[in-house]
C-alpha cells in the first residue's frame, strides 16, 4: 500500500522540501538531527551513553557466559572467556556511536 502513493508523494515532498528550504524553515530540524548523530550534546549525556553502552555489552556477555557454564558444567571457564568479549563488544558499540561519519 505504501507503493501506491509512493509515486505521487516524492515529487510533492521534494517540491515542499525545496519551498521550505527556500523559506529557511528546514534548517533547524536538519541541524538538530545531525547534532544527534554526532557525539555532540551535553557532557552528561555523552557520559551516560558511554556508560550504558559499555555496561550493557558486559552484562549480556556475562549472562551468556554464565548461562553456557550452567549448561555445560564448566563453571568458571566460559564466563572468563566471554567477559573480555563483552568488553570488546562494548568498545565496538562505542565505535559505532562515535566513529567519524564520512
Amino acid at each position, binding site marked *: 500500500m505504501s507503493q501506491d502513493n509512493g509515486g505521487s508523494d516524492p515529487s510533492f515532498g521534494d517540491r515542499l522540501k525545496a519551498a521550505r528550504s527556500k523559506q529557511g524553515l528546514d534548517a533547524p530540524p536538519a541541524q538538530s538531527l545531525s547534532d544527534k548523530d554526532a557525539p555532540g550534546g551535553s557532557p552528561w549525556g555523552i557520559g551516560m551513553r558511554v556508560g550504558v553502552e559499555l555496561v*550493557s*555489552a558486559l552484562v549480556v*556477555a556475562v549472562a551468556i557466559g554464565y548461562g553456557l557454564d550452567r549448561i555445560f558444567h564448566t563453571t568458571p571457564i566460559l564466563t572468563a572467556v*566471554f567477559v573480555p568479549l563483552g568488553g570488546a*563488544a*562494548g568498545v565496538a*558499540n562505542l565505535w559505532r556511536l562515535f566513529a567519524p561519519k564520512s
Partner: protein
Amino acid sequence: MAAEGSNSIDALGQFQLHPALGPIGGSVNFTQSNLMMVLAGGLILGLLWVGMKPRAMVPGRLQAAAELGYETIMSMCLETIGPEGRRYFPLVFTLFFFILFGNLLGVFPYFFTFTSHIMVTLALTLLVFVLVTVVGLREHGLHWFSYFLPQGIPMALAPLLVVIEVISYLSRIISLSVRLFANMMAGHVMLEVFGAFIVMLGGLGLLGYLPAALALGLNTVLIGFELLVATLQAYVFAVLTCIYLHDAVHLH
C-alpha cells in the same frame, strides 16, 4: 511520606505499585502504573482527535501541536530509515508519544511515571528488538545473518568478531531499556531527596528557612530539567528505534 523519621529519606517509596480504581482494580491487579498508561493513551488520542477536528488551513494551537508531532516523527523516519521509513511511521509515532506522555505525566505531583520501571521499558525495548529482527529476516532472508560479519576483515578473525557482533546486537536490549529507565528514575529520586530536604530543614525552625528555600529553588530548577530529560529521552528512544530499523532494512 518523604520524611517519616527526622533523618530518613524514603527516595524509592514513590516507585511502589498500588492497586488503582478501588476493589475492582485490586482484584485484577490494575495498578496506578496501568492507570497512567491508559491516561497517556487517552491523552494522545484526545490530542490527535480534538486537535485535528477543525481541519483548518491555518491551524489553531492544538492542531499545530498535532501536526508538528506528525511532521517531526515523519521526517525522522524518512531521514533515518530512508524511503521505507513510511512503513514504520505508525510504530515510531506510537512509541514516541507513549513514552513522551508517560515521562511528562510523571512530572505532575501525585502522578506516577510508568517509564521509571524497568519492566515497562524492557517490554517496550523487547517489542522493538523482536520487531527489528523480524523485519531484517523478512527483508533479507538468511542473508540477514551477514550483518554479524563485518566487511573486509581477515577470515581468521571471523569467529571472534561474529561473537562480538552478536553480543553487541544483544546489548541493544539492555542499553535501550536501561537508558530510559535510569534517566527517569534518577530524576525522580533527586526530586524526592530535595523535597525531603525542604521538609526536614523547614522543621528546624528559623535557622533552616534559608537552606530550605535554597532546596526549594533547586527543586524548581530540577522540574525544568526533568521536562527536558522527559522530552529528550522519548526522542532518543524513537531515534534509536529508527536507527535499528535502518540497520535491519539496509544491512549496515
